[in-house]
């Protein structure tokens, strides 16, 4: 197991390096003059030149990138071009907000998805099963931004139950609507996975044995089927967290939740490249860490994976 985790940990720095290089290439090597883009359409040639020198765009891209990596490792993440604040300080402030909303959404998604999935499996082919699966397909076929607008319209503007946007403490009403919106598509996905995993255990010998022993249906489901259905569910939760992190920016922008996704979006809107570069790196690195974590978790949960990795 240690060897398995070790090999994953060894690759991680390489992946992070590749990631930062790709983002660097995206922002500074793609056709288009970053100094001109940052200065804006109507800036004078002197302003553009000043930015070019100030940001070091006049140097060779490879030198620029290596300097960037060195600076980042030393904790020098640069200053926001928009606010002139230290990017690292900004990120320290906004990133926890994103972690918070992602985790709350993941918990909501697991609770909703697993319970709907189990319910659908237990009552399979009934109207409950069919309507739950229809809702799950629907939830996966909606653009997230549109779902956010609809829920905002319904719960905030029409019913007035929840604030339409903004943020507060963890246990405030502000987090409910954005986290729920983020959780809906993933709970739809989890419900389908859970249902399939539960149905797979239905035919297993231990379930037949449990039934023939005369165990109550509730015990069969909770003690024998669900524990064995957990494996595929766990493997999906990692993927799911990564997906939530990809969608979180949309939610943060629409609900004005001051997290990393909104920070990245605002940086992009203002062509604030240092802030954008840092936030993209952190967002993608977070996904890599989540992937690593879910690989390890999966390895811990399933001895067969460990054996394969060691072979």
């Amino acid at each position, binding site marked *: 197991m240690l060897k398995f985790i070790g090999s994953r940990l060894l690759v991680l720095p390489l992946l992070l390096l590749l990631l930062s290089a790709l983002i660097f290439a995206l922002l500074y090597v793609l*056709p288009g003059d970053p100094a001109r883009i940052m200065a804006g359409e109507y800036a004078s040639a002197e302003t553009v030149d000043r930015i070019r020198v100030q940001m070091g765009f006049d140097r060779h891209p490879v030198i620029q990138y290596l300097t960037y990596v060195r600076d980042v490792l030393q904790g020098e993440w640069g200053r926001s071009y928009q606010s002139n604040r230290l990017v690292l300080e900004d990120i320290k402030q906004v990133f926890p907000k994103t972690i918070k909303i992602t985790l709350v959404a993941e918990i909501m998604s697991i609770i909703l998805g697993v319970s709907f999935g189990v319910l659908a499996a237990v009552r399979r082919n009934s109207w409950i099963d069919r309507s739950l699966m229809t809702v799950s397909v629907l939830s*996966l076929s909606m653009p997230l*931004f549109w779902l956010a607008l609809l829920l905002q319209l319904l719960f905030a503007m029409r019913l007035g139950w929840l604030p339409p946007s903004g943020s507060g403490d963890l246990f405030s009403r502000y987090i409910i609507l954005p986290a729920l919106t983020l959780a809906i598509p993933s709970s739809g996905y989890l419900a389908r996975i859970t249902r399939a995993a539960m149905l797979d255990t239905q035919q297993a010998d231990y379930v037949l044995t449990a039934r023939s022993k005369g165990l109550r249906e509730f015990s069969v489901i909770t003690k024998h089927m669900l524990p064995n259905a957990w494996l595929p569910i766990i493997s999906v939760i990692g993927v799911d967290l990564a997906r939530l992190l*990809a969608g979180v920016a949309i939610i943060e922008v629409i609900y004005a939740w001051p997290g990393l996704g909104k920070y990245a979006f605002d940086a992009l809107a203002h062509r604030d490249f240092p802030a954008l570069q840092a936030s993209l790196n952190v967002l993608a690195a977070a996904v890599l860490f989540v992937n690593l974590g879910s690989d390890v978790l999966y390895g811990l949960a399933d001895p067969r994976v460990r054996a394969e990795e060691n072979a």
Partner: protein
Amino acid sequence: MMLGGVGNGDVGRISVIVSLWRSKSAAISMVFIVVLAVIGLLAPVIAPKDPTEIEIFREVNGETINPPFPPSGQNWFGTDQLGRDIFSRVLYAIRTSLVIGLLVRGGVMIVGVCLGLIAGYLPGVVAKATMRLTDVMLAFPALIIAMAVTAILGPSLSTVIIALVLVGWPDVTRLVYGQTLGIRASDYVVAARALGANNFRIIARHILPNIASPIIVAFSMGIPGAIMYEAGLSFFGFGIQPPMPSLGLIISDGRGYMTVAPWYTIFPGLTLVAIVLAFNFLGEGLIDVLDPRSK
């Protein structure tokens, strides 16, 4: 996983359509997609109104009212703040959605399949490097990266397609890599190599036809995602630019009128959901017909 190509390659094009037709949801979605395509092609003919025609006031029961007008027999989806017919605007926007969906997914498949075949066929450094690249690419927040690409290149139809292909290929590469790896060691590939076939011939004649089913499924299953991404890009102002029609743009315009004119946001969104659902059902139908073992 596919265990070789027996059976899959034998399914002719016509019999695929016949089998699809037998599945109710796939048949309905096929009809719906054909209808959508016709709407997209013939939007100028079908649209009940000119999508740019402005109507700044209307007399109702002797009273003068201003737009946005609610849905009525005259304007099925209501009008926007300038009195333009939303139904007609949506019909025009469907064309953009379909074009983007097909072109983006087509581009993604070309890039993704080529890289996947190369990585799967040439294990070692090439495969490792390609797969690590997909790991990293899949970790990116795709929508923001796509926004950054269009922002830098200047948002337009072609840069939206470039941006979405750029963020879309890693999934397909992963799929094709796995499939190729499985087939590379199969008896008929070994036999072909023993008979002196070169690499290109082996890939083109023996590997590609045997992984055609999952590729076709992936093509169709990826179209709705591309359509939703375009809508998202356009919604946030980094995609299609006016006056070109886009469902994302209409929803974005409607956002400011959500409380007074909810139809402005809701109908274009429902249209988007209907398009996405149709492609999803078609994709599921294709899985049943072409690649039942993957279920």
